[in-house]
């Protein structure tokens, strides 16, 4: 498919709900991605810095450090500044969408979502990045 000879894309899925995490992981794995997972914001930050994934799927409402905080700290760090982030959220108010864009999200999906749509969006995002 889109990754012919290079190493597989690495995606980090950060969500505090185990079921959703597993579901997203399964879908990306079946498409040939290498999947990392994080159950909360702190974990996500550590993994992003250590593993430098190609893309991050980030839930906003997580206990402790929430997704927006993780996104902002990623944008502030030159090492993680350019990694695209797709936000996942269960409450979709206009204010939150705006906060997400302002913080520098590449995309935004409201729960419940179709994993197929998410994968199509992420792959187009990564292909675009590659072309650039």
């Amino acid at each position: 498919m889109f990754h012919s000879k290079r190493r597989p894309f690495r995606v980090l899925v950060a969500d505090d709900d185990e079921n959703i995490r597993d579901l997203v992981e399964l879908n990306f794995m079946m498409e040939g991605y290498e999947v990392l997972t994080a159950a909360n914001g702190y974990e996500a930050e550590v993994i992003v810095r250590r593993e430098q994934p190609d893309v991050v799927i980030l839930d906003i409402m997580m206990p402790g450090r929430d997704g927006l905080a993780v996104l902002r700290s990623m944008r502030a760090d030159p090492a993680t500044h350019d990694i695209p982030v797709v936000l996942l959220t269960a409450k979709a108010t206009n204010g939150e969408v705006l906060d997400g864009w302002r913080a520098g999200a590449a995309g935004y999906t409201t729960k419940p979502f179709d994993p197929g749509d998410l994968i199509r969006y992420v792959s187009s995002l990564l292909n675009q990045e590659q072309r650039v």
Partner: protein
Amino acid sequence: MTRRILGLAAIQFAVGLVITELLPAGAPSEGRPVALVGFIAAFALAGFLPVHLEFGRGSYAVVLDEAVLVVGLFTLSPAALVLAAVAGDLLSRLVARQAPVKAVYNLGSWFLAAATSTAIFSTVGHHDDANPVAWLGAMLAMAALSGVSLLSISVVLAMVEGRPLREVVVDSAGAQAAVTAANASIGLAVVVLLHVSAAGPFILAPVVGMVAIASRRYATQAAERLRFERLYAAAGRTGELAGFDDALAVLATEARALVTGSVAICCATRGNGDWVGVRVDDMATRTAEPQAVRVLAGLAAAGETRTVSLAELPRDVRRALPDGVDLVVAAPAPPARADVVLAVFREIAPDSQGDLRHEVLGAFAGHAALVVANALLYEEVDAALRRELDMNRQKSEFVAAVSHELRTPLTTVMGTVSTMQRLGARLEGPTQQKLLDRALEQGERLRRLIDELLLVAATEHSGLRADLAPADVGRIVEDAAAGLPGGGGRVQLDLAPCAALVTDGEKVRRIVTNLMENALKYAPTGPITVDLRCDSRYLALAVGDHGPGIPSADRERVFEPFVQLDQSSTRRQGGTGLGLHLCRQLAQLLDGRLDLDETPGGGCRFTLTLPVTSRPAVPLPVLEGAA
């Protein structure tokens, strides 16, 4: 302060005595005791009947003693004149019952001024009442008197009011000069008329009499007007919307200024009978000592203003109060809108002018009651608004949380279905099975959430009624335990025999089941104990476990909707986050309560308390930590 004023007075007496010693003995009319007594009487009368005049923006009491002095210069020997002046002045102050410190100081001031002016007149050397040089000498003497008086009064004013001496002198110089000039003219007119005939001065009597009467009336009116102005100004400054404590502070400040006291305390109740007070003095505004407030509330009488000498109070009562000579205490006349007591403490006893200020404080007390009533109303409205805002905020937070809680399991259900659709054939059998199991589990969770949300909504909007019927709580607990997954093997029942209770058995069962399920979920090992106890009024059902327990700071939070103390474990345990919230609401619906007890030994212990009759005649005991 008093000591310093008396010290200054002593200096004045000393200097005055030295000047008197130096006065020449010779005089125009030596050895006429009748004249001496006459002048003493004249000085006393002049001092006792001041003529009130308005000058510029101030009002002044013009005392004609200076005019008497002018006449005396031409009539008495210098030493006799000074003696007559001091004796007459002392007499008038005694009759007027002037405050001692003030009287002593003014007497000293007058003594020094009289001695100085007499000495100057003697130095000029002409005593002939028809000689213009002698008139000039008298004028000079009066100018000196004016200067000495001005300085003496200014020094003490500057000290008491804490203003620079220069400023005080400039402020009062004009009035002092005018008063002395008028006095000198009157005095000289009398001297000249006396020269013409002994009865000559009597032609002045009608004029002086008329001026005296008119000025007296005017002075009364002016004082009245001043009091009203001060009262209006004070009322105006207390018109701001303020809370209870701020209102008391403002009222005390104004009361202190109205009565010119050193300390003021404004006491009031919040309508519950508990008196509190705010104390204001030169330095600070602070909460008054409870003993002082108690004493003042006891001293005040509704609708009365009274002056209480502090020396007359019992020693222990006095110790509770601030220092001072006396205190003015006022309370509004019934029916007042609030219980208020205003008390002002004075360090210097007032003269007759000061006594009129009591009336002002009495009038102000009525206004103070209104201000306090407004403050209480303001606090009530403010609190209601805050409650309303808080409730609104809680509601929108609840809606946001509901959205999140409903969407999360729905995401798994829908995500699973679309994943199966897309990848179904490529997934292995066990993976497919696991996905489907989870979707089903989350679907079930969604169903329970919806059930509980509907129940919460129903109880909140009073749509849910208790179906009251006699119920055997012991039996309900046994059935609920038996219905638990695994037959409730870990549950240990200790049920005291209790008479049937008129309540809603179904709701009790729901609460008990929920509590036991929670215990089984969060305490994975150890026994779950269920105790039932009852007396004639209450039935108490306690469900305890030996799990990790709940930090005491979170003991109330567990009853809030969607509070998950350890989110990851709650999700894993399949809790909806509504169970305990709903249980408490159901308990309240049954006129009971549900509390999380303090358990120092660890674990959790929830207690459901129900009244034996469904509508208790007595309120439920307030358990610690319960909302």
